């Protein structure tokens, strides 16, 4: 597609539930990044894929967070047993390669109630 697409744009879920957030990167972009932006903060790195593999998952806060990119294109960020502190905007970005500029999607606003 022309840009990075993230769905849903908004998600409200109850504490303890499981959620999946989807990211469709720009076609041909091999690098894909997930960031989280909490209120008043900058984007905080979560995980980076190069192709199908997670090249760096050092930003995932705990084992409730997991992400996949099985075919090297679409990625899904999965959060188990959601907590109120998980409420944030989850941003996805893609780039041609790790040293190229990032194009961000509009984000998914997750609210855990």
């Amino acid at each position, binding site marked *: 597609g022309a840009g990075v697409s993230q769905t849903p744009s908004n998600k409200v879920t109850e504490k303890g539930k499981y959620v999946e957030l989807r990211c469709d990167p720009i076609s041909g972009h091999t690098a894909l990044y997930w960031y989280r932006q909490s209120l008043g903060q900058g984007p905080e790195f979560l995980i*980076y894929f190069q192709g199908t593999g997670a090249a760096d998952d050092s930003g995932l806060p705990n084992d409730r967070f997991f992400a996949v990119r099985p075919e090297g294109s679409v990625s899904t960020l999965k959060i188990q047993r959601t907590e109120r502190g998980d409420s944030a905007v989850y941003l996805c970005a893609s780039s041609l390669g790790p040293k190229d500029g990032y194009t961000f999607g509009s984000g998914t606003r997750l609210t855990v109630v």
Partner: protein
Amino acid sequence: DQQVKQNSPSLSVQEGRISILNCDYTNSMFDYFLWYKKYPAEGPTFLISISSIKDKNEDGRFTVFLNKSAKHLSLHIVPSQPGDSAVYFCAVRNSGNTPLVFGKGTRLSVIA
């Protein structure tokens, strides 16, 4: 232990005047520096960048200055326009294939 600091959460500037946004970083291994702009309900968009081998990069109304000895960079916007009102994030990267590290952002308001 923030690696990238934007110490001014907000800045207000009159239309037509200069806007100066500042960013400090801690790690001298960072070698590529970027500014992103973010409007509400949109993702950040790339604005301008500079590599560590330069001290200035200019693109139209936007100029980024890098002072490596002070580990400081700044973004100058002149003349400022109301459409420049947004949150500006400083981002840095080191020479490896590591992801960008972002500051907390500065909200710029350009008043007509």
